[in-house]
């Protein structure tokens, strides 16, 4: 069974030493996912696997047989950039841009975690089944993605705005039905 990258099937590498990151970049020439530290300390290589954010540098590609991988290249469609990509531009959420694909994939994983009520280290009530994405929650949940340019304030603003817009969009149909 192959691996699916942005909906397209790809062969697994014959050598099990190949990381998912190197499969993406060196074999499939998907250079959007970045190699920062290559040791799990920076988050630049973050991709989504079946919707969950992981570090592709610490992932052996062979472990992800049959799984659905989404990279930054898989986010924009015929309609143009993903809303979160547009928000990063609007809020100057980058300078050099090297950490940006990882930041964006990480934030999309974060959205799913918050939507199902997963707690974080700063969640006051661990037993609560819903989470409010406060400023502190957002920063804690994005702490695995470093930005050496120091664009963190713009990154937080872009993610917060996109999250709020998504909540509004989801809320509207039910309001209309009511």
């Amino acid at each position: 069974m192959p691996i699916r990258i942005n909906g397209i099937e790809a062969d697994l590498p014959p050598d099990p030493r190949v990381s998912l990151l190197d499969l993406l970049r060196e074999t499939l020439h998907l250079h959007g996912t970045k190699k920062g530290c290559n040791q799990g300390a920076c988050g630049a290589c973050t991709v989504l696997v079946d919707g969950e954010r992981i570090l592709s540098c610490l992932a052996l590609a062979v472990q992800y047989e049959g799984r659905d991988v989404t990279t930054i290249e898989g986010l924009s469609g015929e309609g143009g950039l993903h809303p979160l990509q547009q928000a990063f531009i609007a809020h100057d959420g980058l300078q050099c841009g090297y950490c940006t694909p990882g930041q964006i994939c990480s934030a999309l994983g974060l959205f799913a975690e918050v939507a199902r009520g997963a707690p974080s280290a700063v969640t006051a009530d661990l037993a609560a089944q819903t989470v409010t994405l406060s400023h502190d929650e957002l920063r804690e949940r994005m702490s695995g993605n470093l930005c050496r340019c120091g664009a963190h304030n713009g990154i937080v603003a872009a993610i917060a705005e996109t999250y709020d817009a998504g909540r509004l969009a989801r809320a509207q149909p039910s309001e209309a039905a009511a």
Partner: protein
Amino acid sequence: MTPFSYARARDAADAVRLGASPQAKYLGGGTNLVDLMRETVERPTALVDVTGLSSAISESDDGGLLIGAATKNSAVAEHLAVRQRYPVLAQAILAGASAQIRNMATVGGNLLQRTRCTYFYDEDGSRCNKRAPGEGCDAIEGFNRIHAILGASSACVATHPSDMCVALAALDATVHLQGPGGQRSVPLTALHTLPGDRPDIETVLQPGELITAVALPPLAGAARSTYRKVRDRASYAFALISVAATLEVEDGAVKDVRLALGGVAPKPWRASKAEAALRGGPATERAFLAAAEAELADAAPLHGNGFKVELAKRTIGAVLSALAGGVA
């Protein structure tokens, strides 16, 4: 990375069969092992992928919880029964690593993660008795701010890096094992060994033995438990000091207390001396600090980490005071 073969285990018996080859290692999420292989600190010739084994969290007959060893760290922290009945465990896991890493890392792998001593990682430039027994230890006279103050030896002063294990030590968790010789269980506090003159041996696991599950006992008092981690930055850093605690107070006296420390020792450190000093005594800040003093009496700080002794005492005092005062 040196070459290795890769096989995916169907179940625990299959894993043990595949893991019987010399130099084989079990592979969970890879967040530590793959990194160490890339640095050639670890050089297994065969990897047995055990991420397909049990990742279920189920109710035990005794009223506790049984957590499959392949369960992701994030899944444990997110599980509602863990959050409600063992909040110290959810907090400890959430205090560690990053969301991405917690999504990859397994419970079994977390138990067996290796030290973050920089000299251990520096294969080309440093001596390390854990990597090469008998070679010497460059940490003892080197930069040892992050190193151990309890339980270390003249051969090794490295700390165990896990947050999750500190909570499990406080909770009296049991680790289920399966190996060529059959199944057995060991208390979490007996899984890891102190370095002595063989710091390369870190656990009581026998060759080919696999962690299959972690059992949490039923502990009514654990609903009132907490984890506090002190580190150099607010998130995504290993602990300088961490404290896992449960506390039951009745009529102003300590009915039961469980206390474990992280960042201070080569293994998750159950603070038995402090517990003994506290049980049955007054639940006051003064008593908490005296108990911390008793636990740290044996501390042997190095030239770079003397601050950990005072930091550990004060963190223990603060955590127990918070639990006693209702601020969990």
